[in-house]
């Protein structure tokens, strides 16, 4: 099957034509193109999407809002209803009916010639499909949390780095001004040296009991949905609701780690390292199919003396969001709001000679810009791995009830073979993690 040539190939061919003598400026103002403000096809990022449930479609819409910078040409999903919904979005934006559909990511990756792919899947699939996409040298916009286990995460980070692709994590709070400003205030010492951090994440859901075994809907490929996870009968729990079952997710804790833990790490300068000691307790439902912790309270100690407490919001004073406690005061930041021990702190601007964090005002635009410029995005892979690894180590501490010692450089649990087993969830045959 031959498809439209992608921008990447176009650039390669152009470069070959001019023998590398001329470096084309990457960003040409679209008004200069004489095309009524539209970018020429050669400058569009040709994309596909794997996983177009609620979050996948939401991402597609955000990319499509960037007008003609992005073109979705292919979609892969294990649910044919999702496929049709994704295709409708793409075809409407493209004003054609050409978007191609796949039910198996392997065929999708084999046949499509793309610049980039947007991936939004249940967490248990991330290790395999993120790695496979990176091995195809596709730039990836991938949903958080980037992995279900630490071992999956390590593999993804190394595959992304070795393939030298552009990676953006769906931790979009980084591209919001109130989060960036709060993190910059903290980083520039407005509340003094940071002593501790509290991260408040949502409380868990109520249970649903155990629904009966049901016939799999004809639109859903249940076997493929399960993939590397242990086989279980279908009980009506798949799309979205997978996040309440440990086989596929760690619950609100891991779902939200890529937001508020990520922001906490950003402001405290911890986003390239990890804790050295983790301990705490979880509260688990007694009855029913949902088995993720619905409450959690764990403490992470860092080598520099900072302590980070991660809790469901009902357990802590400031509730939801990231709260940094410094020697001179505190700042809390949450969606749409910030607060501080002294509200005046929040009005302060960051001076020219102070530390300025990576600035992005649109998370999806930032990805597209970086695909063009080949520069690092605002939410690169290792940073995402460091955010989710805090939650996954907390999960291990809560599962075992033990204090966990962690080596953030080697990324290994120290002196605890039993807890170390929880760094991975073995895949069901025949699935294996792709290697380079």
């Amino acid at each position, binding site marked *: 099957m031959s498809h439209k040539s992608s921008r990447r190939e176009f650039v390669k061919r152009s470069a070959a034509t001019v023998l590398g003598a001329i470096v084309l400026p990457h960003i040409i103002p679209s008004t200069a193109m004489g095309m009524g403000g539209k970018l020429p096809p050669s400058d569009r990022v040709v994309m596909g999407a794997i996983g177009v449930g609620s979050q996948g479609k939401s991402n597609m819409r955000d990319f499509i809002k960037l007008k003609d910078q992005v073109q979705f040409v292919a979609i892969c999903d294990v649910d044919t209803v999702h496929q049709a919904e994704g295709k409708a979005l793409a075809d409407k934006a493209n004003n054609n009916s050409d978007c191609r559909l796949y039910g198996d990511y392997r065929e999708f990756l084999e046949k499509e010639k793309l610049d980039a792919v947007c991936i939004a899947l249940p967490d248990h699939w991330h290790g395999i499909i993120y790695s496979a996409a990176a091995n195809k040298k596709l730039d990836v916009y991938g949903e958080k949390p980037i992995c279900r286990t630490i071992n999956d995460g390590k593999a993804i980070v190394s595959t992304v780095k070795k393939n030298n692709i552009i990676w953006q994590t769906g931790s979009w709070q980084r591209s919001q001004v109130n989060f960036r400003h709060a993190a910059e205030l903290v980083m520039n010492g407005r509340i003094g040296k940071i002593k501790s951090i509290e991260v408040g994440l949502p409380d868990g859901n109520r249970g649903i009991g155990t629904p009966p075994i049901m016939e799999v809907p004809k639109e859903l490929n249940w076997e493929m949905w399960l993939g590397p996870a242990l086989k279980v009968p279908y009980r009506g729990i798949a799309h979205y609701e997978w996040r309440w079952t440990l086989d596929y997710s760690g619950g609100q804790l891991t779902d939200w780690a890529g937001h508020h833990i990520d922001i906490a790490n950003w402001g405290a300068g911890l986003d390239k390292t990890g804790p050295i000691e983790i301990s705490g*307790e979880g*509260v688990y439902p007694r009855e029913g199919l949902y088995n993720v912790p619905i409450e959690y309270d764990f403490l992470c100690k860092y080598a520099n003396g900072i302590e980070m407490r991660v809790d469901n919001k009902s357990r802590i*004073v400031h*509730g939801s969001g990231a709260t940094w406690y410094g020697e001179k005061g505190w700042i809390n930041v949450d969606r749409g709001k910030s607060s501080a021990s002294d509200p005046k702190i929040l009005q302060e601007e960051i001076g020219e000679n102070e530390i300025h964090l990576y600035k992005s005002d649109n998370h999806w635009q930032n990805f597209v810009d970086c695909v063009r410029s080949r520069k690092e995005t605002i939410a690169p892979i290792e940073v995402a791995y460091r955010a989710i690894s805090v939650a996954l180590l907390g999960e291990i501490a809560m599962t075992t009830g033990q204090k966990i010692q962690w080596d953030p450089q080697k990324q290994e649990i120290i002196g605890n073979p039993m807890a170390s087993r929880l760094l991975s969830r073995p895949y069901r045959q025949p699935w294996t993690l792709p290697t380079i």
Partner: protein
Amino acid sequence: MKKQFLFLLLIAVLLTFSGSSFGAPKYKALIITGQNNHNWKASNSILKQLLDQTGLFTTDINITPAKGGDMNTFTPDFSKYNIVVLDYNGDSWSEKTKTAFLTFVKSGGGVVVYHAADNAFPEWKEYNQIIGLGGWGNRNEKSGPYVYYRGNEIVRDDTSKGAGGTHGARSEYLVKTRNFDHPITKGLPANWMHGNDELYSQLRGPAENMEILATSFSPAKEPNPPAGTTPAAAPRGKSRVGRDEPVLMTLKYGKGRIFHTVLGHADEGGGPAMQCVGFIVTFQRGAEWAASGNVTQPVPVDFPNGAGVSLRPDFKEITLDEDMAKIVSYDIGKSTKYYTDLQSRIRKVSANAPELLKLEKLMVAVLKNKEATAEARKLMLRELSWMGSDYCVPAIKGLTKDAAVKDEVDFALTRLKAKK
């Protein structure tokens, strides 16, 4: 061999009679009951059972004269006891008994105020200082402020006019722990479902030296729509108008410690409000705290949380043997609680190799049990995959040819890094 058996038998007998404290109970408790607008005949023996089963208390019950009887004959010797549990809402006590009770509390005696005991004695000032908040009995703004939470803020100064004490229809309801550091509530979930009960609301009283340990949300009553009109649909979020009402409180009176629980409305045989593990455990922990200022009882594996109610129909904590027996016939469609109990037990001892091995042996016995369902074996394999020792490996390998659990056997052996 015979000697060994006798020794074991002796141990078993000792364990049966000594409760968890391995010795004579430390504290003496007195339950006062005999008049109540509630079913005191059902509640008093259950409260005694709950106190005695902690192994911390020996409990007497003092039944007052019936309503209208000669209260001068009610003269308990409070000084013999560490705590007094009030399950009483009736005629006034004699002045002598009132004085003796106040002396008991002031000099360091503990009190547990149970459910409708906070309806009693609206006119007795010191009693209301002891209970902190009360309801009914014509209580109003003269009794003291309404005290409650609004969001995360405690409101202690609502002196608005109005009656003290009401409750809506009985229901299961969510209790929010407000103090995670108090000995009674330390280690409890932030949110837990309580069995079907009345939720007392709009209590009022002096509320001096009172700490609120837990609250529950009581929606405000909507005013009745004018006659002949249809009520408009409530706007989104409207039903959240109301107050988070105190359900567990502690107070100080003189040197005395008081634990006040509004939970536990008694039906014949106790009913779900008393069978609720949340009621039982907070009552037991509150009683110990009232007696000693500390709590030594661990939070049990069956404590409820935000996911749902947890009941003890026979008022006893589920044992490991019962959990394991149920796991053998495990069917996920029926109940998961025996398995999740086992997970909690594993968590508590996972760093203690000998204790963990005891659990592992029971789990391996399930793997080898021909009666065990495939579902039961799968669950054991999932757990053993991380907490198992070398002990479980041969049994897992023995299941390699069992098609029903093939994936789980692979899963466990891979994680245990055992050769297949």
